[in-house]
């Protein structure tokens, strides 16, 4: 067992760091990269294909976002990549949904699942990003119907970003289960909603289990509309109720004066155009400010329709949405009030000196937080 050695410093104020801030832009886009056909199923007959995906790559490079997070980056990755790779570093690609005979058991298609998640990220060359392993959703609904969510391995990926000025932010990129409009019309998407809510709860647990002084941004195709999914209460308010952080949807905050559409469990809300949904899309950017630590403030929000067209039609079946944030460090807010000897097994949460949570402290100085009490530790 690792032993914690104590010092006798009391009232030691940590991080008397002056407030610093910087701005950055972030975009999320479902690039509609499913092939036009899987087996004999026309899964994406009107998708962008090679040519359209190349135009999407060109569009993104012109937009010059700092961080771009994508979903459904499956079969046309290479043609998009050639536009992006000079100015951006790209995350690893999990593969396509190409059907190759030896990969598919045609006699038992019910057992097949493509192991790719379609999640992709790229960031400007001067940013530092580390990504943790991908996490698949524990619950899905729909194999060859109900939007076929189980054909691929949908889930989320967590990225830890260090910006140009040294500010740090965590980003979750994700793709949640969809509702088929036909099922919505029939009132038959309850299990799709259940799966989606289970995914929000899984996301909440993951975020809270790793929440530290860094703010968190959630981006992606969440297939969620506030009127049909009770995300405001279950996720946004749910996190706020812990007292550890606050959550806000950038679109709602900047475009709707903070007023969320009222949830109606009986509402049949289709995945219609953004005009019909008063601007709300199934793609979202949410941010979480920890109760103590670095803070995000949204500056702008856009549904980037301009330029995302070819011959009058959108390049894909989603528009990019983007936001600009100001990130301000106001110090960790954590102060060590006394230092005591304690068995490491009883430690609740440990942070490094920059305020980032540490799972397994090695030698050095750390901060331990238990409830409202904070202690400084030296770990040998």
């Amino acid at each position, binding site marked *: 067992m690792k032993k914690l050695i104590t010092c006798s410093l009391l009232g030691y104020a940590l991080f008397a760091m002056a407030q610093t801030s910087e701005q950055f832009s972030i975009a999320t886009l479902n690039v509609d990269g499913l092939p036009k056909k899987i087996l*004999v*199923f026309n899964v994406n007959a009107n998708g962008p294909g090679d040519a359209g995906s190349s135009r999407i790559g060109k569009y993104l490079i012109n937009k010059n976002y700092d961080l771009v997070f994508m979903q459904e980056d499956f079969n046309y990755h290479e043609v998009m990549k050639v536009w992006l790779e000079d100015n951006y570093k790209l995350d690893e690609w999990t593969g396509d949904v190409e059907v190759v005979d030896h990969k598919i058991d045609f006699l038992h298609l*019910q*057992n097949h699942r493509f192991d790719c998640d379609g999640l992709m990220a790229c960031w400007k060359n001067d940013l530092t990003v580390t990504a943790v392993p991908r996490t698949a959703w524990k619950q899905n609904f729909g194999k*060859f119907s109900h939007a076929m969510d189980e054909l691929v391995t949908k889930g989320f990926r967590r990225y830890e970003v260090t910006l140009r000025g040294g500010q740090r932010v965590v980003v979750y990129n994700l793709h949640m289960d969809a509702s088929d409009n036909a099922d919505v019309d029939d009132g038959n998407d309850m299990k799709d909603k259940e799966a989606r809510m289970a995914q929000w709860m899984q996301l909440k647990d993951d975020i809270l289990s790793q929440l530290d002084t860094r703010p968190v941004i959630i981006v992606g195709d969440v297939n969620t509309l506030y009127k049909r999914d009770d995300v405001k209460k279950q996720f946004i308010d749910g996190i706020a109720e812990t007292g550890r952080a606050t959550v806000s949807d950038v679109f709602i905050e900047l475009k709707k004066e903070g007023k969320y559409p009222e949830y109606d469990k009986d509402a049949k809300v289709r995945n219609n155009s953004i005009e019909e949904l008063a601007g709300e899309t199934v793609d979202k950017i949410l941010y979480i400010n920890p109760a103590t630590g670095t803070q995000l403030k949204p500056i702008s929000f856009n549904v980037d329709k301009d330029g995302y067209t070819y011959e009058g039609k959108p390049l894909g079946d989603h528009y990019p949405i983007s936001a600009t944030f100001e990130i301000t460090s106001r110090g960790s807010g954590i102060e060590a009030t006394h230092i005591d000897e304690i068995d490491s097994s009883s430690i609740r949460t440990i942070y490094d000196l920059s305020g980032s949570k540490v799972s397994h402290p090695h030698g050095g100085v750390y901060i331990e937080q238990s409830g409202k009490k904070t202690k400084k530790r030296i770990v040998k």
Partner: protein
Amino acid sequence: MKKITIILLALIASVLTSTAQEVTYKIIAEADTTIKTKAGGATLYSRDVRRYVYEYTSKDADGKPATISGVIIIPAEIANGSTPCDGILLFNRATLGSPDDAPSTGNAQLLNGLISNPLKPNYILVMSDFIGYGSSKDYPSFYHSGDVNARNSLDGLLAAKQLLTDKAISQGKYLFNLGFSQGGSETLYVAKLRDMEYKEKGITFTKTFAGGGPTDYAIAYKEYVKREWCEDCKDVVMMLISAVENLHLNIDYKDLFKEPLASGAKEYVKTKSKSTLSDYGVSMEDSLSHLIQPAYMNLESDEAKTFIAALEKINLMNGWEPDSTQKYFIEHSRHDNYVPIQCVRAIIPWMTGKGFTPSLVPGKTNLQTNTLVFKLNHTFSAIVWLIQTVAAIEVWPVLYYEGEQNRYYHNVVKDLNVLKVIKTLESWGIDLRKMINIHFARQHFESTRANRAGILATLMDLVPGIKDALSKVDLTPEDAEQMLEDAGITLEDVLAVVAYLLTSPEASAAPASGSIVASLPLSENVEAPLYLMRYYESKLANWLLMGGFDVEYDKWGM
């Protein structure tokens, strides 16, 4: 007060004992082995399996406990947990030529074809020997004698499920009830017993597939007498002997059969072997009038009437309130040379009156029918049933998800109607639009619109040459009308056909394929599920063709 407490405790204890009671079984043999699907001495396919022969308690005809045997065949990949199990096939066996052919003996090699075939269905096969075979060989055979075998089958299923649970082997989501010929009839008795009794024990079938079954014994007997013939007269003799024995009819075999069969009937009861009947002069191709006494070949005789009345007492429909949430497929060749089609033509309209809607389209309603199989041969009908059934269970996990029909598949089947059948006739070279006299037809339809029979008769009269054309595909106008009945084609459907015939005078090019499905003008997307089913069917058909079976894929009806 103390006494009351004791009584209460005793009551609670008895309830606990009853609810905690487990289904018991005894494993007789367990082996990891390879099963082979054989026909004509040739091995058509083999598959590694784990095979359990087991005994369980069921009931005899008097309701007394009887030890019955059965077999459970589990694909090796399922037994060792390396592949998911899709479900269980409760297979009700067909007529046995000898006790040596009982499922538990391992000799029923064609039955292995249900899971040992190129589609590699990931299902567990459960088969009861039925009473009188295997471990219960000392009991009489209940050949077409009501619920006894059905109870054996369902008790065997419960025991098999317990065994699988105890062995930690996955049972999958689906449970199909199936059988052909004798098994086709037993399958419907199983469905009946499930609805009336075993539903309470947690048994719900995903779908029942019954083919070629003598589902109405009285009708079967009457048809045999009328025809004086059956492709295998031994089966008719076996049915009569079983009725005499099991229904306690007190008929002297000398009054029922002619010699030498009359003297050999009791010997057959002991041996249960068709070879015994051969020993007493019964051959497959015999005339029934050579075997059965005139009194029982005359349906107006008192003897025959008494016999028919006894058979009607164990009629499938007696005491059955069918659960219309259960799904059925009933298949029968129009001119089955073993089992008269009149048997199913009694059950289909009866089920229609019980909340079922017949349709020849798979998945469209709760009662899929196929009485369109063209060839006379009972065996050919069995092949069609086998292929359609195996393909259906194979594709089931794709077409159904969490108890719900796949939306794309639903969109296909809901739009299939009689017009598509007309287009199929066109593909066979019978283009009704070329034949019809439009002006004459319009006049006649105005006057006969009032009733379905009139419209059908008018249709037949209006289309010169239609009778000849139908005869080329072995159909009479009466057959065609019966086919409409069996297929659940409504007056509305017929009127739609009329409209089609009257408004499309120009013949269009015939579709390339004889398949109803292939002729559909569907978008590619919604066709996909049916492509998959056709792919499975054709894969099985090609397999059997290579194995020497006479598979005429274009003559299946649907």
